[in-house]
């Protein structure tokens, strides 16, 4: 058995409890041997999606139960759907919390504390409302930027001359592809924005090679996010990955457009 205890410090004597998503550490304990590992909680600063990150962390550690002070219903739902029990209301040291938990599961046949047992994923009214709320929130978070882009594209159509576009995108497949990859690598954001810009570039006469490279590079290469990727995954990884995906955006563009033209010719 493996338990994850949210704690203020990195050892068994640290205070357990607090909020599951924002506690400073997770102590992963084997209750049989009391061997433990302290993991700093990436969401301790309380940024967005801290609870989900904590859920992901607990699942990736393959723990059987989470012992914490408070756990949001959403996080508890995700955990229980993945077979992880959730025991809340913990207010003791990590060591004592683990001991109390073991005592209770040994003496009770029912779920310990206010634990939520693992249950099967089933669609009910609650999960429908939950999915509807999350989708509405996701779409609402997209809209401000999307509206900004739509208005900007309008300005672009009214103000940017065909001559300037012809200067950037010559119509030469290789040059256009390179220009598209560079432009896509420099820009970032939701892919839907790249579709809108790419679609408008296409109607403005930019070649499909350039637009395709732009679409692929937009999501897979991130010069703006590079410092964040270096910090998270290391310089070598981030530089090699972005470099290779830049080349890939060119290859995908050439392959997709060439095959697309052949297919369209065959079936037209």
């Amino acid at each position, binding site marked *: 058995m493996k338990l994850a205890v949210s704690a203020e410090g990195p050892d068994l004597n640290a205070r357990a409890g607090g909020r599951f998503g924002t506690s400073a550490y997770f102590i992963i304990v084997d209750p049989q041997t009391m061997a433990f590992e302290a993991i700093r909680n990436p969401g301790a600063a309380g940024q967005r999606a801290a609870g989900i990150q904590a859920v992901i962390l607990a699942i990736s550690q393959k723990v059987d139960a989470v012992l914490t002070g408070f756990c949001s219903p959403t996080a508890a739902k995700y955990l229980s759907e993945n077979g992880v029990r959730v025991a809340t209301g913990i207010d003791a040291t990590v060591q004592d919390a683990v001991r109390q938990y073991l005592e209770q599961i040994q003496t009770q046949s029912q779920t310990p504390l206010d634990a939520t047992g693992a249950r099967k994923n089933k669609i009910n009214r609650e999960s429908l409302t939950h999915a509807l709320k999350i989708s509405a929130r996701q779409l609402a978070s997209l809209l401000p930027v999307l509206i900004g882009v739509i208005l900007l594209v309008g300005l672009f159509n009214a*103000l940017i001359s065909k001559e300037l576009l012809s200067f950037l995108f010559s119509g030469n497949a290789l040059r256009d592809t390179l220009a598209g990859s560079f432009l896509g690598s420099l820009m970032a954001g939701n892919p839907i924005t790249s579709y809108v810009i790419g679609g408008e570039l296409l109607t403005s006469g930019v070649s499909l090679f350039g637009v395709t490279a732009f679409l692929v590079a937009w999501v897979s290469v991130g010069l703006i996010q590079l410092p964040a990727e270096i910090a998270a995954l290391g310089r070598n*990884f981030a530089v090699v990955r972005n470099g290779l995906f830049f080349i890939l955006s060119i290859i995908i563009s050439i392959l997709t457009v060439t095959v697309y033209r052949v297919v369209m010719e065959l079936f037209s």
Partner: protein
Amino acid sequence: MKIHTGLRNFIFPGSVILIYGILFFFNFDKAFHALLSSTRLSLMLLLPLSLVFTLMFFMNLFLSPAHVTGFLGKKSGARGLILSALAGIISAGPIYAWYPLLKDLKKNGAANSPIAVFLGNRAVKPFLLPVMISYFGWEYVALLTLFTIAGSVATGYIVGVLVQDST
């Protein structure tokens, strides 16, 4: 000074509206033409966006971040790469939210290839396909999706070969 995230989302559209205000003042005709163009674009996006919402709803109903982790946490090898590609395709939200998890997975022994495959396959967004199809047609989108998935898996594998795992 820390700007609230909700407010920060409106800085960009607010700035564009400001440009429109200035343009209306100096060149009414151009501003009106720009607004007409934007209205046409908004109307064109209404139907695809409704489909996007429907797909988002079903993905949120049946998939959770826990599923993504389940796929990404698997061992390496061909199966691991395919599952990582699947995790990238179904993952949602900004890339920044995923960096701490990827860092943690790497610290816990995840190899470089599955992480690179995951990041590459974030380019494929099933719930946004209606918008993409409305612009480029389904034949093009199908080919692009196919090449993106295959290319990302191959490139992710090469990243793993070129970059030594730190563990």
